[in-house]
């Protein structure tokens, strides 16, 4: 900054003052955004006697796991719903990866007839709001016995994520240097071998991104689960939440609600914090195309 005087805007604040202002704004934004999350976690740790106190206290008088013990025994027990959500999410991840990896490979490296047309067809399914397709899918799934089934819901969630996944895998495979596969081809390796030994290791970040988005979408998806998972033992976590809030006895059990909200948020927050890099790059490539 050799031209320090020129750096100062004519009518604005000095550089130092602006630095402090930015820091203060950042801290205010962080506090504001974290506040609901922190309040929710603290509320979930209140002792039972304090959960319905009017007016509410900001901080629990002591920390207690009573609310968590209570939701552990809620209806079928919260772990049943957590397991349902986890099974559906795992199936969604497997389906997305199993479909998008070979499809991306074909788009990136094979002279498939009508290739660009197929690609546009797959991407254009993003234009159709899935909320509109739930009526026919419900009819189809009830005929196939796929309502109240984790596989049925996983198919719906895969349908949501597939266009993005195929798009991302095509890009990831196209970025693999041609020289590497040519070396493998000279050695007489089959296409399946090349995919496994050359392409998949090099496109691993893309696969992680596909799996990450599949997980978050599936774990959080609401209306499809609400309609398809029409039996209590098949509920996923978001659907169980609606049961807690409508209350078994006509009134809301706030403590149980807080604890289950925290349980529903935690996996996504942890996965995001661990894999933030993949999430943001995936989001940008998906939106920017």
């Amino acid at each position: 900054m050799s031209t320090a005087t020129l750096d100062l805007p004519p009518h604005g604040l000095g550089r130092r003052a602006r630095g402090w202002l930015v820091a203060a704004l950042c801290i205010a934004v962080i506090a504001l955004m974290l506040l609901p999350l922190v309040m929710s976690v603290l509320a979930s740790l209140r002792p039972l006697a304090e959960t319905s106190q009017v007016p509410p206290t900001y901080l629990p008088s002591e920390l207690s796991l009573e609310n968590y013990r209570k939701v552990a025994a809620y209806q079928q027990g919260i772990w049943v719903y957590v397991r349902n959500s986890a099974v559906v999410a795992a199936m969604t991840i497997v389906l997305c990866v199993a479909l998008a990896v070979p499809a991306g490979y074909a788009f990136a490296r094979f002279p498939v007839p009508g290739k660009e047309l197929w690609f546009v067809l797959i991407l254009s399914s993003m234009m159709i709001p899935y909320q509109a397709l739930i009526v026919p899918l419900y009819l189809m799934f009830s005929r196939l016995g796929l309502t109240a089934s984790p596989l049925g819901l996983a198919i719906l969630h895969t349908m949501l994520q597939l266009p993005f996944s195929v798009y991302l895998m095509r890009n990831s495979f196209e970025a693999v240097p041609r020289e590497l596969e040519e070396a493998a081809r000279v050695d007489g390796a089959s296409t399946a071998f090349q995919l496994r030994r050359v392409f998949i290791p090099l496109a691993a970040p893309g696969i992680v991104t596909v799996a990450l988005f599949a997980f978050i979408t599936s774990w959080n998806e609401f209306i499809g689960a609400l309609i398809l998972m029409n039996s209590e033992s098949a509920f996923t976590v978001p659907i169980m939440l609606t049961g807690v809030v409508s209350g078994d006895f006509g009134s809301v059990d706030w403590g149980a609600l807080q604890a289950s909200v925290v349980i529903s948020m935690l996996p996504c927050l942890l996965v995001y914090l661990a894999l933030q890099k993949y999430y943001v790059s995936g989001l940008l490539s998906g939106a920017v195309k």
Partner: protein
Amino acid sequence: MSSRRNAFVGLAWLAPTLAFVGLFVMWPMVHLIWLSFTSTSLLTGKGEWVGLDNFATAVSDPRFWAAFRFTLLYTAIITPILMVLGFALALLVAPNTPLRRLTRTVVFLPVVIGLASSSLLWFWLFDQQVGLFNRILVDAGLLSEPMVWFRKAETGLAAVIISVTWKVVGFGMILIMAGIQSIGTDLFEAARIDGASAWLRVRRIILPLAARSIGMATVISIIGSMLAFDQFYLMTGGGPRGKTFTSVYWIYQSGFVRFDLGYSAALSVILMLVIMAMTVVQLRLQAMRRRP
């Protein structure tokens, strides 16, 4: 390997995805259009061909129009809020410093949690008895006593908008920030040396050059708002007196609460056409962006 054999191998790799899209996207879409011309009931699964009756009913159904108007109102209010805040946050966090990176991460946190989780979290915060948001407003002297947010449609809508803004503002921020970061630093340097004020730099350089990413974030957020369901289902339940039903909520209500799948399908077809038109706008913006 001959290219013909290559074509077959490629098609084989592609076949499962094409079959999946055909079976679970294209076929249901055709089925949906067919259903919209029938009186199919959820209870019996049977129905007759009724031609355009369902669409005629929709056009003359005041509840359909009320839901559509309410969805437009929600979209018209929340979109500018999200874009202005998203742009302001993007300006704040675009430079790469540790504190700004931390701010980005925190603002983005609520984006990854479920809309159901955040809606119920805020449903509690807004509660007139046990809600801490009310307590904060009272303690800050902004309210004389806790407010019953969900008794009136207007305040219920305000509560939903506050909660959804908290939940998704980070999404617009990230998209717009990427747009700002792609502007070359030499432009800023030139402007700075010319003595342009911060405000002038925002208005004359950042705003025009980030316009496409703002445009895209706007369209994505409009489409998302037009499809709103979870937040109203969980926070207002469509009430009071059905005043906060959105389009998707009304489709759900018609099909799965009133069991009229044919009518629900007709509404879905209308929604699909509206959203498709918007997506075309989005794709146009993306095509513009791709050009240098």
